[in-house]
């Protein structure tokens, strides 16, 4: 093989249109493959969508389950599995934030930025991998849920709509995570922020306990917490007990619409912010 500089790279100087889209897709594919290798080498990265929901299901059905009563009655197992489904889907942000912060700290982002690859592919690849992670989480929760007696009582369209809604919210939250990771560019800070922001977001919601049982100030936060609307939508669409339907605030009266609006709002805010942060030259 000669050492002479090669002009054989597959490109034309001013590519546009279809070829540009095809290159973008190829770059995303290459980077998604990279993320999958990461997960294979370090399966602990999947804890958020495997061990954690399994532990929640076991904990809340067998340990706390008998002590918690739902307002208006209803099967707590079905209630809490739908809740764990909701929070698992909503919990995408920390993984994306930590992953991107790691990329920045390791210097690999510098390499990407010096290559003639599509500008958006690094973020898109990360988010595609995350969506795949979320699908894994979905399968895990459904499987353990069914094992502890969770059932759906609606038609398949509604159930699929519930899955789709949860994945849409997941995707929107990943962009929020991307912005956080790019802004903090330090995996430890990203982890810390995840704990400070996402942990309360998950617990101050209707995921594990009904809002009716909360002190008033917490209850107001929980009522407007988008995680509550996601779980409420899922409960409604799966036909599981949903005491939040009795709460007279707009998001819980229209949980599906509220979830969609919230997801679109997150995307409208965090997609441009992430792209701008990614293009910032002093990223590293």
């Amino acid at each position: 093989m000669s050492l002479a500089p090669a002009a054989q790279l597959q490109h034309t100087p001013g590519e546009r249109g279809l070829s540009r889209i095809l290159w973008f897709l190829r770059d995303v594919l290459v980077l998604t493959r990279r993320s999958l290798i990461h997960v294979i080498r370090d399966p602990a990265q999947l804890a958020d969508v495997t061990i954690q929901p399994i532990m929640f299901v076991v904990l809340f059905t067998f340990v706390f389950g008998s002590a918690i009563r739902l307002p208006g009655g209803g099967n707590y197992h079905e209630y809490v599995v739908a809740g764990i489904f909701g929070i698992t889907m909503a919990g995408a942000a920390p993984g994306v934030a930590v992953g991107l912060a790691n990329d920045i700290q390791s210097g690999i982002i510098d390499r990407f930025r010096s290559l003639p690859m599509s500008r958006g592919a690094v973020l898109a690849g990360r988010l595609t991998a995350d969506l795949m992670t979320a699908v894994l989480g979905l399968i895990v929760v459904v499987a353990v849920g069914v094992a502890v007696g969770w059932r759906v009582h609606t038609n398949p369209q509604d159930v699929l709509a519930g899955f789709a809604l949860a994945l849409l919210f997941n995707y929107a939250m990943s962009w929020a995570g991307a912005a956080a990771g790019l802004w903090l560019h330090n995996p430890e800070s990203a982890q810390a922020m995840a704990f400070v922001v996402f942990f309360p977001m998950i617990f101050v919601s209707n995921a594990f306990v009904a809002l009716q049982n909360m002190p008033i100030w917490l209850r107001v936060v929980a009522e407007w917490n988008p995680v509550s609307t996601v779980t409420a939508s899922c409960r409604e669409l799966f036909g599981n007990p949903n005491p939040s339907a009795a709460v007279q605030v707009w998001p819980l009266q229209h949980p599906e619409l509220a979830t969609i609006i919230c997801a679109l709002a997150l995307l409208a805010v965090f997609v441009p912010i992430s792209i701008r942060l990614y293009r910032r030259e002093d990223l590293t």
Partner: protein
Amino acid sequence: MGEHEPILVEGLVKVYGKTRAVDGLDLVVAKGSVVAVLGPNGAGKTTLIRILATLAKPTGGRAMVAGYDVASHPAQVRRNIGIAGQSESIDEYLTGRQNLVMVGELSRLPRSEAKLRAATLLGRFELNDAADRPTKTYSGGMRRKLDLAASMITQPEVLFLDEPTTGLDPRARMGMWQLIRELGDAGTTILLTTQYLDEADQLAHNIAVVDSGKVIAWGSPDQLKTQVGGAVLEVTLPATADTEVAAALLRGAISKSVTVDQRRHKLTLPTTEETGLVTKVIRALDAGDIPVDDVTVRRPALDDVFMTLTGHGAETDKEAAA
């Protein structure tokens, strides 16, 4: 591709807050040449390379790489360059081979071609044994080599290497020098920075000495050495000889400017254009019955050039006063 200078920099400025990291820098590099950028820490070498590789945006001035302006056509620049930065840019979880193939594919090589190039480079950098281990397990030097290999995966027209041999063992350094020479001979234009003056001496067709963000000297290693001063003739006498008598002899016979180092029994005199200087020196001393142990013509080292050009006045003055 039309005729163009591979690297052309005019009045380049980069300001970080109050720091003028690059401050009106000019540089023209001819095709296929190897240029070493020398300068003290903080001189702006890395900043220059990052701007040329489109990783940082210039505050002012102009920089053209492979015929494209780095500020207005970064995408075109990226298609023609390779860069190995001062700190490595590699993926810890991927193996060495996976890293190279990924960089090749993202540089738009077909996957088969990327694999082929990766294999060649892994061999070239003697990473074959570690090729299929995650780079997490690599030593510092191995990471360095892999990063250098990644910069060459597309056989770019212009290559930027920021301290390429820092952290390499002597054998790997020789290998890297050899590779840089071959790439240069094959027409690749290489801009490298280094802290090792012998490296610049060995590799570079031209050297740019940079200080405070400016090129303060430019030329071939020989030109720079001559600029600092010509060669000197060093005569070593045995310990029993009287150096002062010898110096007087030489002052009378050859040149007034003979300096004496009593402690090391050495006489130093400047070389001149006239021929037969060494013979004359030996004859004169022999006539005075003074034995000679050693005669060497010492050319100034690049170290002398570096110290002379970048030695900061303030520090020297302080030392002189002390």
